[in-house]
């Protein structure tokens, strides 16, 4: 392609200006904080270099939060990506009234996270919650769900998945619509089974949509903390205290924006590594 001089920059201009002003500039001034000690009336802002990072690495709270964040993401991301893909395939079938089912899965998308949390909190309440009432009705033991340190993280994964899968499936569905019918026809003429068809046609053709979904799911889950904030405050027994919640608390409760920014930087580096791997594995060859 011929090298253009000014045209690409003109196309980029509004986006770069917008992102530069309202995202990058505030990020940079926010990140500057990670090299400073908290400022109080008497002590003015002091540059402390990497001290915020060093003290993080010696802080057991940081390590336990890091472990919880990784554990959470290890499960929630593959689960959501896999289920979203399955759902997209299901919703792509040419059934009568498929529009209704697509509509149904769209509904949780429009439920905001706080509302979803409030709803599920009542549903999962250890006292008279609907889910527990059903369990008791079936002769099973009631479960603590969000109030048990062994179940809370899993419960939050469940709630996040309920809310997220329909949303991400929409993007995959858009991708599926772009797979030419002719490719399926050709492969079925070759006598390929449904699974082979998936492997040879659907999956390779979906790589770009999948990359988008995988990256977006990962990024949003690494930054997710409002369900923990609303439902468990990081408990029970710190079992849902993910890094982003720790960062939020540092900024807004613990008056320590430096620590908050340092945590975000570490989170960002981790996300970048994982996203880079995803780009690598899902590189489209066609």
């Amino acid at each position, binding site marked *: 392609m011929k090298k253009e*001089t*000014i045209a690409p*920059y*003109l196309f980029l*201009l*509004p986006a*770069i*200006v917008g992102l*530069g*002003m309202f995202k990058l500039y505030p990020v940079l001034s926010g990140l500057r904080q990670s090299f400073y*000690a*908290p*400022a*109080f*009336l*008497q*002590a003015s802002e002091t540059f402390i270099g990497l001290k915020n990072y060093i003290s993080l690495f010696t*802080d057991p*709270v940081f390590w336990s939060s890091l472990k919880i964040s990784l554990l959470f993401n290890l499960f929630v991301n593959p689960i959501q990506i896999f289920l979203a893909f399955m759902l997209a395939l299901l919703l792509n079938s040419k059934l009568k009234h498929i529009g209704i089912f697509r509509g149904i899965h769209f509904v949780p998308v429009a439920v905001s996270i706080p509302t979803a949390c*409030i709803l599920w*909190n*009542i549903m999962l*309440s*250890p*006292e*008279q919650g609907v889910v527990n009432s059903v369990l*008791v*009705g079936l002769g099973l033991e*009631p479960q*603590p769900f969000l*109030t*048990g340190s062994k179940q809370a993280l899993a419960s939050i994964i469940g709630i996040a998945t309920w809310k997220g899968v329909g949303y991400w499936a929409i993007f995959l569905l858009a991708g599926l619509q772009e797979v030419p019918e002719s490719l399926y026809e050709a492969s079925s003429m070759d006598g390929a089974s449904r699974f082979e068809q998936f492997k040879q046609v659907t999956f390779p053709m979906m790589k770009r949509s999948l990359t988008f979904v995988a990256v977006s799911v990962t990024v949003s889950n690494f930054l997710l903390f409002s369900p923990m904030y609303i439902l468990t*405050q*990081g*408990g*029970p*027994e*710190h079992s849902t205290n993910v890094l982003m919640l720790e960062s939020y*608390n540092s*900024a*807004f*409760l*613990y*008056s*320590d*924006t430096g620590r908050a920014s340092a945590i975000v930087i570490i989170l960002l580096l981790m996300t970048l590594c994982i996203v880079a791997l995803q780009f690598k594995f899902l590189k489209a060859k066609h």
Partner: protein
Amino acid sequence: MKKMKWIAVCAGISLLAAGCSAKPEAQPQPAAKPSDNAAPVEITYLANSSWEKPIKKVVDAFEKENPNIKVNLQLSPTTKLTETIEIKLASKAQDLDVISVDVPLTMGYALKGYLEPLDALLGADAKSKWIPSATEAGSYQGQLMAAPMNSSSVVLFYNKDLLQKAGVAFPSDQINYRMTWENVVEVAKKLSADTNGDGQNDVFGFSFDQVGKAYQLLALAQSKNAKPLSDDGLTAKGYTNSPEMVNAFQFYSDLFNKWKISPKIKREEALDYFISGKVALFLASTQNMPRIKDAGMNFGIAPHPYFEGGKIVTPTGSWHVGISKYSTKKEAAAKFVQFLTLGKGSKIWFDENGALPASKELLDQIDKDSKYQEFPNNIMKLAASEARETAAPRPKTPGYLEWENNVNKAFEDIKNGSDPKKALDDAAALIDNQLKKYQSVVK
């Protein structure tokens, strides 16, 4: 050539930025500079969104009295007020003049330089016009930083129908015949019941209103003479996890886990459990009264319980108002603060909002007015005497948010069955770690 391109791009950026600000939907900003004394001054007041109706009346009355000051109300939901204040003041924005201050945060805000001292602005005698506990809680280093809008107190509500059904005598509403916690447990056991036979209690004898929140639960420990934090507010170890604290919170744990007389619910659900007849004794702030009354239930009130042989302690503290250090209209702001906390506004606020007043004048009126002798208005009289005689403030520390967040988490864990000692030990260690940063600034 390359340089030229970059210049062009930069020029484009600045043009676009200028273009953005001139967007048609951008409304002209009201002139912010108090250049002319005669020109009306507009002050912004950040308040809790649930106060909208009563606070509007105060503002209207104030504007009528001061035609050259306009109060711009900014409302934030309760749950996000702290964050909103933090963002606005940390960015040193000048668009906020009067701020609502949750009183335990006074010291923290003062240290961060968010608040303008009020002594000079309100006059030296102002401090003596509120009950001492309220003035004290809103002061830092002898200076008033935030003026009390109102105080608060807690009483024991009970569902008469449920007590009658269980054959339990109604507790007295007289302050001299206070129930002990031991009584409460005994009665609550009788009141708890499994009505549908599934092996789980579905009517409960007792519940706190602010389940898991320090505001209310601290009174348990204080009744056992616990001191939740060191005097300088910088050490938790040995205080937050003292034997008295552990003892009090073992009791709290037993309510849920051993005796099963309290439901393991969240704070937002508590009032509804009482109103729908699932809880018999409900220890709650007087401000729950309107909804309980509206629900048309058959209820009574009694004073806050205490531990046998322990101290009589009730929760207190509430909303204060401060003036932002970055405000450019402090004089006008002070006029409004004066009106709201001591002037005509305080009376309107009390009449419309119904919270327990902090001003001595209003409390005296409650004592004298015959309206407050009869049930259910006598709740105010009960609360007023608690506020004067038994109210114990929460710890004074620059790190109140750190302390509260960690103990609240511990209280939740204890409710869910964690060992009280371990939960409080953990919390104390975490708090101490977070309080370190204040060591150098607090003398």
